[in-house]
């Protein structure tokens, strides 16, 4: 078991180079479609991260182009949320580097890190609104703590942000009174309150009804166009994500499996990529969390429950 990191190291290194090669080829392709990977706001190099004994990332390489919408896709449990937390400096990688606008995120002091985060917004999967503050105060929170704006101005900004997510009328409600989709939209308004340079969305489409899904897709696109924000969308909703993304990374098994513009990925011949992009249930990418053989597992369970019920009867 202790040899595991050593064993995975070799294939990973090979794959890291692989990703590098792909990178070079796709950036030349990318220039044609207006994506310049050299003008990157975020650079992730050789990122490794382990949880317990499980290596979640074994050498991730990616660049998030400035002013574009970049998507990171992958099956659930591959570590997409973890990746966002690594980029935001909440988790520390075991190796590798994350740079945002030239700053080495994990080399910053706690103070510098908090200062850097004012320039980024993050939309959590659960919304994570402050439960003791009203919708209005939730959106006003970043403004109150980071600016000295007068109350009237804060009020205007908050109402503009709430209007843009369609919830100006809900400003007096408390978070407990909102539906899941509304919570997510208020959280979005809060994330953009300070007009950040970078906004990270964790599963923005998960659990949304078709209408709010459409609203959100438009909203993300519009924010990006109007405010020139760099957006990083993490999602397993392939269809919606491909419609808004300018550039896409697919991660699986702790590495970048494929990258390119949506058109490039749609045309990708790699069976693993095709399986994921076209949502086929069967293929080379396993859908299951690592587990022992299914049949054996069930029979084992039967034997032991038979044993225990036998024991219960005899006692």
């Amino acid at each position, binding site marked *: 078991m202790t040899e595991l990191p050593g064993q995975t190291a070799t294939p990973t290194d090979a794959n890291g180079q692989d990703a590098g090669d792909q990178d070079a080829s796709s950036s030349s392709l990318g220039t044609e479609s207006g994506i310049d990977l050299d003008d990157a706001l975020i650079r992730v190099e050789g990122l490794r991260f382990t949880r317990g004994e499980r290596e979640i990332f074994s050498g991730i390489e990616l660049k998030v182009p400035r002013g574009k919408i970049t998507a990171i896709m992958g099956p659930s449990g591959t570590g997409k949320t973890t990746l966002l937390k690594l980029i935001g400096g909440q988790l520390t990688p075991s190796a590798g580097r994350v740079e945002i606008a030239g700053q080495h995120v994990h080399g910053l002091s706690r103070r510098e890190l908090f200062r850097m985060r004012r320039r980024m917004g993050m939309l959590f999967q659960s919304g994570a609104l*402050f439960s003791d503050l009203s919708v209005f105060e939730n959106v006003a929170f970043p403004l109150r703590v980071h600016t000295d704006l007068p109350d009237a101005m804060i009020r205007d900004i908050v109402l503009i942000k709430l209007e843009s997510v369609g919830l100006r009328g809900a400003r007096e409600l408390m978070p407990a009174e909102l539906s899941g989709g509304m919570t997510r939209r208020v959280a979005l308004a809060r994330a953009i309150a300070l007009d950040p340079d970078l906004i990270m969305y964790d599963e923005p489409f998960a659990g949304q009804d078709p209408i709010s899904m459409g609203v959100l897709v438009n909203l993300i696109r519009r924010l990006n166009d109007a405010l020139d924000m760099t957006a990083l969308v993490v999602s397993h909703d392939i269809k919606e994500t491909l419609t808004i993304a300018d550039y896409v990374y697919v991660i699986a098994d702790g590495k970048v499996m494929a990258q390119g513009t949506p058109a490039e990925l749609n045309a990708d011949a790699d069976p693993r990529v095709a399986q994921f992009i076209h949502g086929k249930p069967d293929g080379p990418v396993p859908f299951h969390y690592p587990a022992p053989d299914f049949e054996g597992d069930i029979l084992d369970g039967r034997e032991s429950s038979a044993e225990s019920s036998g024991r219960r009867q005899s006692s």
Partner: protein
Amino acid sequence: MSALNRGLLGSITSLGRSSIEVIAAVGRAGILLVQAGIGIPSREGIGLWVRQMHFVGVLSLAIVLVSGLFIGMVLALQGYTILVGFGAEEALGQMVSLSLLRELAPVVAALLFAGRAGSALTAEIGLMKATEQLTSMEMIGVDPLKRIVAPRLWAGFVSLPLLTIGFSVVGIWGGKLVGVDWLGIYEGAYWSSMQSNVDFIGDVMNGVVKSLVFGLVVSWIAVFQGYDLIPTSEGISRATTRTVVYSSLAVLGLDFVLTAVMFGDIG
């Protein structure tokens, strides 16, 4: 033989592992105390602290005062039956006030405080952690140690001594109710035995010092348990229990140590 060895080795291993875990937790708690407790409060920070004084202090007032009343009354009743045997029932005021000021008020108020306010602090911070409110605050660029933990820590530290003083006052008054109004001791004797035998520094201030220490320890345990818990519903319930158990043990243990230091040379 080898089975015995393995059993022994296993228990040594697990002992070692849990010792390391305890030391690591104490280390994390220390870091939390330094990062949350030290720093110049902003005007906003003072507002947050006042708000927490309400939740932590004012809302614990009722249970603390009612308990203080009953404990003072019981002390007077018990003390009277003993003192009257020596014809010394005039000393009841002294007995009630010294028991309360030195011992019962700091300790009982701290235990009640751990159950009422400490557990609530742990659950509140834990729920914020479980619903990612702390994480999202960090991502907004606000340190939850300063904004969430610090006001609660300081509110606990300041409010327990005040609650303890309230406990003593009400307890002494409860002793008077029983001793003077019910059992018929001369009221002048009740107050004057107190006046001439209670030392401000030696008794009152020592009690306050005790309650400051307990206030710090209980609030520290409570916020740390909340901040450090595993963010699931089971994690929250366990941490809440741990807060009450650890605080109670810490209060009783520290009370012995402090009493030995403060009053050890008297007897």
